[in-house]
């Protein structure tokens, strides 16, 4: 944490460390987008000029190595890998006319946008922290004159403190020494959470069942991953959150976030 904080305030000069550092440092990244941003920076060009295809390949190669070395990475990294594999296929295969899935170029632009936005927010945070701050460079009256005399005791408590107190009491009673069990079956809830992250707020069609299974599960788990994510998809459709379509038998299942009140 300290190393990160320190890093935060320094100019994020591209580190010229060898690629191997990345493999060791997975845990130092704040998620897949952070990792992608770092990889993009290593292309040493403006974010608007990066080659998204090269970036996708680099990321997929990275995930591949990580998996070969049997290093555990969080599911988020694999979700991103699935998406990038899909993006890569869209970029490389020419698009047929009646295909209304998002074009590879659209998806690449979206990724570029997200990278730029994340970088911009980091930059904003840096600028914010560089401002003169209260009680550090700017000061309030040091010896404020309290209002006194009359006798009413006023108790201070905020809703936040109240809720926090309640949360801590309710947690106090819970025995906390349980061992998380290793799962070999995907629960519906898990599948659902991952699907929701995968589809995100995008309203474009995404076809993913294949990539999902490939990137999120060991071969032994594929059946349960497919079954669970399919059921979760149906559940989300039933709730009106997703739209689902399949153009031919055994063809890819396409889904997207349901578009509300849009023509």
């Amino acid at each position, binding site marked *: 944490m300290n190393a990160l904080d320190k890093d935060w305030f320094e100019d994020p000069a591209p580190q010229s460390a060898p690629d191997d550092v990345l493999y060791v440092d997975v845990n130092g990244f704040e998620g897949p987008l952070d990792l992608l941003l770092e990889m993009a920076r290593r292309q040493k060009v403006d974010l608007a000029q990066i080659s998204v295809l090269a970036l996708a390949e680099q990321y997929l190669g990275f995930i591949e190595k990580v998996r070969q070395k049997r290093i555990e990475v969080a599911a988020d990294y694999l979700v991103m890998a699935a998406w990038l594999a899909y993006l890569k296929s869209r970029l490389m295969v020419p698009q047929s006319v009646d295909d209304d899935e998002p074009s590879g170029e659209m998806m690449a632009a979206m990724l570029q946008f997200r990278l730029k936005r994340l970088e911009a927010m980091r930059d904003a945070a840096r600028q914010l922290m560089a401002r003169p701050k209260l009680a550090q460079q700017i000061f309030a*009256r*040091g*010896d404020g004159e309290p209002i006194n005399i*009359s006798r009413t005791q006023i*108790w*201070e*408590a905020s809703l936040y403190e*109240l809720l926090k*107190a309640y949360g801590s009491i309710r947690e106090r009673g819970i025995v906390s020494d349980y061992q998380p069990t290793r799962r070999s079956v995907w629960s519906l809830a898990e599948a659902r959470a991952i699907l929701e992250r995968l589809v995100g707020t995008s309203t474009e069609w995404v076809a993913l069942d294949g990539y999902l299974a490939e990137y999120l599960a060991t071969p032994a788990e594929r059946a349960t991953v497919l079954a669970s994510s399919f059921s979760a998809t149906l559940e989300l459709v039933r709730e009106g959150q997703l739209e689902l379509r399949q153009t031919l038998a055994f063809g890819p299942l396409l889904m997207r976030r349901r578009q509300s009140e849009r023509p």
Partner: protein
Amino acid sequence: MNDTNAAPEPAEHQDIRQRNLRILEALLFASETPLGTAELRPFVSDEADLDLLMADLVAQYADKGVNLVRRGDKWAFRTAEDLAFLLRREETNTRPLSRAALETLSIIAYHQPVTRAEIEEIRGVQTGKGTLDTLMEADWVRMRGRRRTPGRPVTYGTTEGFLDHFNLEALSDLPGLEELKGAGLLSNRLPPDMQIPLPFDGALRDDEDPLDEGDFGDADEDE
């Protein structure tokens, strides 16, 4: 002393003087205690006459709502004496609510109507006499009635003052389980059967009797 020669001098002087005055102002304003020559000296220019500068500042603030006053051989900003009434309303002796009181209040809010024994069971510790008193004095908690069980314990609930203070339109505005989790106030590793009750502040429930006549005033002796 030639006027034409001296002209540029005072202008520069004036700048330095102005700067010294601003620095003194800021230091005295931000300081938690009155400051004397020893503390102020290092911040103004070497050749500055501190006494003169202070006299100037004192004069500048003489007619303002805030005056620069001497305290022994130190200075401090103080509200002008004729405006002291502004600071003499009620003793906003604001004190943060103790942890025990916060916990008790939150349990009453979520679990009402609730008895003292039930509060103690949830908190896992006894509730001191002063805690409920404090909450009732703050007009956040009231005695609602008596539970129709052996011993007829008093039931507690929240007041309108509670809603008002915490800026809630109704008790149903209190966040539920998922919201508490979402805000990081509850961990995600809770037992699946964990429930958060629906608070009730309506009229008396089926299992509640009205308070007895003698209840008012001896809140703590009922148990």
